[in-house]
């Protein structure tokens, strides 16, 4: 069994996920971690797949769906590294009037303290004349929540955004 990271993008319309996953299933592939979402007017798929036949067979299996739905596909073989051990222990929520530099500023500050981003989702929305930007980051903060708070505090004024930092606690019940 080999692994690959499959990227698919195409103009959003119903049936993209079904066409791609049916083709993979027919080609004896299994889907692992996946992120599928609409970004702008495009639908995007990124997923880890396990395949038992050769790499070319996977590409060939996807071909009819790619042509029919005008998709762009990228397939990268990956070595089967075990999933990272660090789990998200902090969630950072950022929102404010949209302007360039919010993501760059916040993530640069996080990178400096060794914060490992595991998940980042952002959305530009609101009134087109006065758009707002909302970003939710989940990740692993090696030195805990308070350090993340301190690091991000100056960015509130610099970027003119609201930033809140919450612990992600797993309740094992």
């Amino acid at each position: 069994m080999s692994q690959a990271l499959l990227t698919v993008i195409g103009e959003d319309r119903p049936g993209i996920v079904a066409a791609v996953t049916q083709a993979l299933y027919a080609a004896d592939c299994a889907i692992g971690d996946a992120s599928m979402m609409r970004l702008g007017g495009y639908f995007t798929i990124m997923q880890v797949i396990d395949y038992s036949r050769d790499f070319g067979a996977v590409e060939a299996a996807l071909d009819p769906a790619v042509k029919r739905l005008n998709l762009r596909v990228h397939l990268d073989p990956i070595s089967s590294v075990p999933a990272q051990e660090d789990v998200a222990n902090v969630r950072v929520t950022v929102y404010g009037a949209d302007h360039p530099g919010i993501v760059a500023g916040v993530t640069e500050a996080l990178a400096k303290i060794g914060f490992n981003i595991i998940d980042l989702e952002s959305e530009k929305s609101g009134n087109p004349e006065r758009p707002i930007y909302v970003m939710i980051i989940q990740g692993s903060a090696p030195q805990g929540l308070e350090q993340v708070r301190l690091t991000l505090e100056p960015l509130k004024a610099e970027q003119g955004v609201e930033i809140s930092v919450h612990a992600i606690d797993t309740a094992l019940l």
Partner: protein
Amino acid sequence: MAVLPILTYPDPRLARPSEPVAEFDDELRTFVADLTETMYAGPGGVGIAAPQVDRLQRIVIVDVRPKLGEDCHGLMVLINPELLAWEGMAVGREGCMSVPDFTGNVIRAERIQVQAQDPDGRDRVYECEGFEARAVQHEMDHLDGLLFLDRLVSRKTDLFRRKNYQKRKA
């Protein structure tokens, strides 16, 4: 005292609703002692419900001292528990002894008032918040055949704080 075997998903027995307890006798108290020991032996060790050990009775045990120290109610044995009121909502990640190796985000009330009977049949009312409130709600779900899997929300779901207050029952 004995550590009882835990049912794990996808065992269909976890989906059955439990019946109210009517007899508050020595047999019940012995079972509660076994259930408590089973809880402490678990990986989280802070909560358990009777249907998780294949006994369809409305019995929940919560003790979040391993997590919170003495800043909680300690050992709570909740028999025939009912939520009287709840307030606030929070997203939190949960795991469960009956769903090994998986955790997911669930929305729960932040503060609850729960009424229950103790092993001697006496009425008790507890007010819980935060982690303890989450644990009580998670375990009470088992009594209705629900797992946290039934309440999963996207791992990205976040809630801006909201005020909410609802009362049930008189």
